[in-house]
């Protein structure tokens, strides 16, 4: 691979850069509280909230940077930010 002029590249190449390792806190759903309102999916700046067939959502931890917007905005406090530990 060599660098193209000005770094021009095919679209979608950011998929290669998995940014999940930047995360300090990981969001975790409490599906008993979740009302499937979709706010977390709408507000996620990294498109790291993925819909499931059953109407609930799950996090794509390859790209979630742990910003916590979803947990902050969740009207039912159904998302907990848990410290990442080895």
């Amino acid at each position, binding site marked *: 691979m060599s*660098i*193209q*002029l*000005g*770094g*021009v*590249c*095919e*679209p*979608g*190449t*950011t998929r290669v*850069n998995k940014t999940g390792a930047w995360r300090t806190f990981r969001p975790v759903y409490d599906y008993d509280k979740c009302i499937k309102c979709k706010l977390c999916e709408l507000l996620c700046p990294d498109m790291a909230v993925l819909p499931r067939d059953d109407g609930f959502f799950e996090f794509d931890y390859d790209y979630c940077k742990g910003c916590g917007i979803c947990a902050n905005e969740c009207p039912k406090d159904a998302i907990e930010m848990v410290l990442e530990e080895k």
Partner: protein
Amino acid sequence: MTVIRTLDKDKMDVAEGSYAVAHAVKVCRPNVISAYPITPQTHIVEDLSQFMADGEISNCEYINVESEFSALSALVGSAAAGARCYSATTSQGLELMHEVLFNVSGMRLPVVMTIANRAVSAPINIWNDHQDSISQRDTGWIQMYAEDLQEISDMTAQAYKVAEDKDVMMPAMTCMDGFILSHVYEPLVLLEQDLVDEYLPAYEPEFTLDPKNPLTFGAFADPTAYTEFRYLQQQAMDNALPKIEEAANEFYEIFGRYYGGLIDEYETEDADIILMAMGSLVGTIRDVVDKLRAKGVKAGLLKVRTFRPFPAEAIKNAIKDAKVVVALDKNISLGLNEGSLFTETKASLYNTKVDVPIVGRMIGHGGRDIPEKTIEDIVEEAKGIISSGINTESKYADLKEELL
């Protein structure tokens, strides 16, 4: 080869510097012009606006923006979309563009911008020196400085030619002294449309932003690749050195006008004392050199026309046989007490066999007039350096002690 002008009097006009530049931009057939007014650059974009209103520039968008930051940012997208882009600015406006200057260069977009050089605030001062563009020297823009109106006009086409070269693809600033050139009227040949069409091919970039063929511009580069991006930018600057010479030579063949490429020399061949300078000051020095030569003083002039990429080799060859060199600077690096032409010339000679004494004299800051007497005094002092060595390496040559 020194300055050559075979000017056809039937083709000559008398025009203001800003108009000459605006006309030059027009005949280079730009596709996007972004405009934000700031003295002493405003006349350029005003004249271009008039050309637009009169329907004289086809296939072109003229964008009024809300700041210089936006002016250049608008051109990032436009240039990526394949447009030949132009803007003009000066002083604080150029400094506001600082961040975007790096982006344009890093994304390898060959934008051309005229700088009507002006001092920077504070204290506020709208007159000429080179502090504004010199402060942007590390942003990855080609920088060229013009001596007079014919040159800044012609330099516009040369700048597009070099910037858009596939081996260069770097943005360029063409610098003209604010007021001294931007607002003065001189007889000149306005850049000829038919000849420019022959000289400057249409801009056809390798990559363009196009919804039909999506590409990512300006993606990030992490530590595994960033160094190589910077290396490639430097390589492009190295490539620009011969391209600037070629662009000047080719311009001469087509237009019959020549001002040097990287540098130009005047009476340097047997000169004991060589004065180096950039911009309109060069014209004053030319006259002083003539006067001194008439009195038997072996003085010469080295005009540095291209400051980035820095033509170290060409400068070295021009001054290697002199007995003393004086670099004149309309800028200062505060904390070093040197102007950049002096610092860089001195630095580029250090690991060479050339051992010419070189001193720096800063003059003409904030628009202070530079009469011939100031240059003559500098030459007089330089004579002393030949006989008894350097006393003061760098200083202001026109300081008013009574104000301190």
